[in-house]
């Protein structure tokens, strides 16, 4: 395969050079008109051959290049045939070819000559994928491949000039012209249809081809032009290879000169660069909504008709986002599809204009990106669900912890504290009795015990308060923070914009954040005052605890702040620490609160 490719890559330019050189070598006074006529073939032939070679090198998977080279070679061989009488080199080539083909196959060689015209039609219809899509196109091209050599053979083998009757020749010529013109008209209609029906991507690539057809069309529509041209150039009888009575378009290959360029430009324009797919990947990585996926992909592949169909296991079919069933196109369709396979079943399918077929790599890359995005979306959905689950369980844990603390505090309050106070009263009564009976020693001992018990009560009270301050349940967050401030060794100013109650777990969270922030400010900031502000706005409670200390607090460094942040996050909020050296520390918490 590589050898074949290499030899084609060498042979085609060699032929071009050879024919051109032979052309240059040959001119003599007599041969000028013939030489000019041959140029008619050589220029477009060389153009087709070179453009085909370029196209083939750029798009090796696409047959367009090969077809274009075939046209070029056909034209060049035609030129060689024309120049045979005057160019030794052309003669050599001609003889070589005849030698290879052999005399009985002369007719075959001659019959195959005009096939380049059919190949041009083939090219037009197969553009830009190199494949003939519709059945009509394939039928037409196949018929012409058979019919054109056949007609040429008939024209060559029947000795019209000997005089089987001029009506036969006229009939033959008419039939041939009608057949050619009909075929090319149908071909033209098919191409125009593809233009009209094609998406932006197809039109983008088709338009240079259509423009480059313009000179040919002009020639086709004004046969007299050819006559004028022939008059000017003074074409002699060029023999059986050159059929000047043919459809003008076929007989004047010069008009094809811009066509190979049109094909090449069109082909390159249809070649979408990877940058559009790269930008698709970027857009996908930024997270696209499912409904944004199709337009993004259509844009990247320059095909507005592109559809994304999702596999619906229940339907055993593909469907669009609205749930409408999407049938995938067959192999002969104007549409093509790529299926994105998942682990067990397809994930989705891309349905696009068949003109994208010749860009398999691009479509595959885009499809892979989309599959990644779809899989990502799936994973993200899973992850979100898991995160939500974790968040909820964390919230439940914090709430449960909060309830437990409250319960412990209440148990202490109703249990140990009450009993100890009752015991205090009892001891007090006993001491009073002892004093009454003059038992000073017992009274003094009881007095000492009472003092110890009072101290124990104070400590127990502080312990219970640390577990859960009852003021928080009794009077709410603002009173509880005020109470914190009264106990703080540095001035605390509270600026509370509201005083209504919040859900108890939110109050507890904000209270403990405040308590910890105050403790930190007192212990570490070295500041002289603390400013606390509490605001409630549009579903959010915002708490700021600021000190005027030396700063340097870091959420990542200490476990205390980390714990606070976790606590706030557990109720769906966020805690941020702003700490500047010499600018103090602000601990800002925001908690959503309906």
């Amino acid at each position, binding site marked *: 395969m590589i050898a074949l490719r290499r030899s084609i890559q060498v042979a085609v330019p060699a032929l071009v050079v050879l024919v051109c050189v032979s052309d240059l070598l040959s001119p003599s006074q007599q041969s000028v008109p013939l030489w000019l006529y041959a140029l008619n073939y050589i220029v477009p032939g060389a153009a087709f051959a070179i453009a085909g070679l370029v196209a083939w090198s750029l798009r090796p998977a696409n047959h367009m290049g090969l077809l274009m080279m075939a046209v070029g070679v056909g034209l060049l061989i035609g030129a060689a045939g024309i120049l045979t009488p005057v160019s030794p080199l052309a003669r050599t080539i001609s003889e070589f070819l005849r030698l290879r083909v052999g005399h009985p196959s002369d007719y075959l060689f001659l019959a195959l000559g005009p096939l380049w015209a059919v190949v041009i039609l083939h090219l037009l219809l197969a553009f830009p994928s190199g494949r003939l899509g519709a059945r009509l196109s394939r039928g037409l091209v196949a018929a012409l491949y058979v019919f054109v050599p056949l007609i040429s053979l008939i024209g060559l083998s029947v000795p019209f000039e000997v005089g089987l009757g001029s009506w036969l020749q006229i009939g033959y010529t008419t039939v041939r012209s009608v057949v050619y013109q009909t075929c090319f008209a149908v071909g033209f209609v098919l191409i125009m249809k593809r233009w009209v029906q094609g998406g932006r991507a197809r039109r983008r690539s088709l338009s240079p081809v259509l423009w480059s057809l313009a000179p040919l069309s002009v020639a086709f529509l004004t046969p007299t032009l050819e006559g004028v041209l022939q008059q000017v150039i003074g074409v002699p009888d060029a023999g059986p290879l050159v059929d000047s009575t043919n459809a003008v378009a076929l007989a004047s290959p010069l008009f094809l000169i811009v066509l190979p360029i049109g094909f090449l430009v069109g082909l390159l324009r249809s070649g979408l660069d990877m940058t559009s797919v790269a930008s698709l990947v970027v857009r996908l990585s930024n997270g696209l909504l499912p409904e944004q996926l199709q337009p993004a992909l259509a844009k990247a592949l320059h095909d507005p008709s592109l559809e994304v169909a999702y596999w619906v296991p229940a339907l055993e079919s593909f469907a669009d986002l609205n749930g409408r069933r999407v049938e995938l196109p067959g192999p002969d369709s104007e549409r093509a599809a790529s299926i994105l396979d998942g682990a067990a079943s397809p994930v989705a399918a891309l349905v696009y204009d068949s003109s994208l077929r010749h860009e398999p790599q691009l479509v595959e890359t885009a499809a892979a990106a989309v599959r990644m995005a779809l899989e990502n979306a799936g994973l993200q959905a899973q992850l979100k669900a898991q995160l939500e689950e974790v968040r909820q369980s964390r919230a439940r844990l914090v709430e449960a912890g909060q309830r437990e603390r409250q319960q412990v505090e*209440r148990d202490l*309050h*109703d249990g140990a*504290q*009450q*009993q100890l*106070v*009752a015991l*205090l*009263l*009892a*001891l*007090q*009564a006993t001491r*009073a009795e002892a004093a009454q009976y003059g038992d000073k020693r017992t009274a003094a001992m009881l007095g000492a015990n*009472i003092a110890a018990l*009072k101290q124990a*009560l104070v400590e127990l*009270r502080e312990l*219970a*308060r640390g577990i859960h*301050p*009852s*003021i928080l*349940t*009794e*009077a709410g967050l603002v*009173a509880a923070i*005020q*109470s914190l*401030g*009264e*106990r*703080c*060794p*540095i*001035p*605390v*100013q*509270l600026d509370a914009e509201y005083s209504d109650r919040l859900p108890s777990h939110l109050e507890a969270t904000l209270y403990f954040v405040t308590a910890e922030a105050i403790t930190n400010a007192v212990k570490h900031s070295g500041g*002289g*005052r603390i400013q606390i502000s509490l605001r409630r706005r549009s579903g959010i409670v915002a708490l700021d605890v600021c000190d005027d200390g030396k700063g340097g607090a870091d959420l990542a460094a200490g476990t205390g702040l980390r714990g606070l942040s976790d606590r706030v996050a557990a109720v769906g909020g966020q805690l941020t620490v702003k700490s500047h050296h010499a600018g103090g520390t602000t601990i800002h918490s925001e908690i959503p609160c309906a």
Partner: protein
Amino acid sequence: MRVIVADDSALFRAGLVRVLQSEGFEVVGQARTADELYALLATEQASLVILDIHMPPTQTNEGLIAARQIRRQYPDLGVLLLSQYVESHHALELLSQSPDRVGYLLKDRVADVDEFFDAVSRVASGGSAIDPLVVSRLLARKRAGDLVDDLTDRERSVLALMAEGRSNDAIATELRISRKTLETHIGTIYSKLGLEPTGGEHRRVLAVLSYLRSS
């Protein structure tokens, strides 16, 4: 004096009743909940109610709500609230409603018999009694540009006793100073803190506590 006691802890209630009876008070009723207390008040004549802040069913602030309600309904009845914790917030709230016949003490104070009955008699005689812990905490509280810092120790002692709701006689006795000296101190305190000497001895407690609590 006829007293009603409301507390859900039977043990504490028993201790309190014994203390009260030992001092010659007549306990005319005992309640475990606010509702029982309302029922008792409807039937029993009493001049003082001693109740716990925490009572069933929620054990949060039933006592506070009951106190508010009772003081509205029975303005001549003294109300003394007891609690395991004392908070300036509650003190101010009680005094704001009316600084008359109201007391707010830590439960432990019941064991300091003299102090407790001093407070009880103040409440019963139309005055107020705020727990010294509330006052000392407010006095110890640091404030930016605090004028309290300008007071002498003696003046601070006077201020604290005023904030507890004590009368001038009681303060003079407590500090062993003459009434005249005390009045001089009080005048200095008012001028140093920029307070208006409003109301009588009973009413000044609210002004002083509000001042101490404000930032």
